[in-house]
C-alpha cells in the first residue's frame, strides 16, 4: 500500500516488474497479483487463499525492485517528515493519499484499519514501513526483507 501510494500506477508497475524479473510462471497476469493482494485480511475484498512459498518469494522480489526504483521518493518523504517546517508539502500529500487509498480499499470496520486512519497514530506505522523499504534496496535486499517480514 505504501508503494502504491507513491506510484499512482502501482499495479501496472508491479506487473511490469514481474515480467522484467522473469516471474511470469508465478505471476502470469494482473489478476494473479490482484488475488494475492486480497490475502490481506484488512482489505474489503479479503479472500483467504493460501499463499505458496514461490508466490511469497515473487512478491518480495517485486517489492524490493520497486523500492529500489522508488528510493528517491521514499527518501524524500522520510526527509520531509524530519523537518516539517521546511518541507511539509511532500509528507502532507503522501499522508493524504495514503488515507484516501485506505478508505477506498480497506475494511473500515476493522480496529486496525481505524488505527491506520488515525493521523496521530499512523505516523509510526508509515515511517517504519518506509524505513524498512529504504533499507532493502541492496542486492541482498530480498533476503533482508524476507527476514524482516518473517520476524515481524
Amino acid at each position: 500500500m505504501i508503494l502504491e501510494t507513491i506510484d499512482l500506477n502501482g499495479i501496472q508497475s508491479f506487473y511490469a516488474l514481474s515480467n522484467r524479473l522473469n516471474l511470469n510462471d508465478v505471476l502470469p497476469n494482473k489478476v494473479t497479483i490482484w488475488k494475492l493482494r486480497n490475502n490481506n485480511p484488512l482489505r474489503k475484498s479479503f479472500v483467504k487463499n493460501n499463499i505458496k512459498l514461490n508466490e511469497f518469494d515473487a512478491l518480495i522480489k517485486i517489492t524490493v525492485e520497486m523500492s529500489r526504483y522508488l528510493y528517491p521518493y521514499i527518501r524524500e518523504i522520510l526527509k520531509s517528515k524530519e523537518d516539517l517546517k521546511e518541507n511539509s508539502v511532500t509528507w502532507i500529500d503522501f499522508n493524504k493519499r495514503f488515507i484516501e487509498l485506505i478508505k477506498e480499499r480497506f475494511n473500515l470496520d476493522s480496529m486496525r484499519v481505524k488505527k491506520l486512519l488515525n493521523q496521530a497514530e499512523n505516523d509510526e506505522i508509515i515511517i517504519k514501513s518506509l524505513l524498512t523499504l529504504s533499507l532493502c534496496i541492496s542486492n541482498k535486499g530480498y533476503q533482508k526483507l524476507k527476514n524482516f517480514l518473517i520476524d515481524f
Partner: protein
Amino acid sequence: MQNKLLFHQSSVSLEIIGLPDYSNNENDDQISIISQWKLTIIDKPLIEGKVEHLVPIMNAFYIYSNLLIKNEIPLYESKLIDIKADNLHIHNIVLKSSKPNVKPLILKIGNSSLSDTINCFDQLNESPIVRIKKTGVFNIVPKKVRIGFNNKVKLFNLIMPPFIAICSLILFSSTFIYFYNPVEDKEKNELINPE
C-alpha cells in the same frame, strides 16, 4: 600508490583507501589492506578512523536499524559508538575516540541519512573489489524461518518415524492385555490342581 573506492548514496558517501594483497596474487584494483576510511554525511562533520573501527561501526548501524524496525528499544551502546533515538525521526550518534582527552563526536541524523548510510555500508559489503570482514547482521535467518520454511520437511521426517513406532508398539501390546484374562487363568489352575 593506494587505491581509492567511493560508495555513494544520496547524501552520504563512504571512501575506502587501501592496497591489494599482492602476496595473495590479487589484482591491482583490489583493496584488501584498508589503510583509511572516510564517511561523509552532508552538513555533518567528517567521520574517519582506523580500519579496526570500520566493522564495529557498520555493525552498530545494522543492529540499531534492526532494533528500530522490529519495534524494540532503539538503543545501541559500545566502547566505540552509541546510537539512540531522540524521537521517531532523529537519531543521536556518539562516536567515542580511543585517544585520551578527545571529546566524543555527537551527530544527529534523520531517517533519510540513516538509510543512506546503511545503503553505503551495503554497497561496501557487496563490493567484489574490497575485501573486508563481511557483516552479516541482516543475513541471520530468524529462528521462525529456519523451522517454518527450511526444515519443515526435515522436522516432519524426524518426528514421524519414532511416533509411528511408539503407536505400533502400544497397539501391539494392548492386544495382549485384552486377550489375557487372569480370572480364567486362575480357574484353569484350579481345574488342574483340584486341591
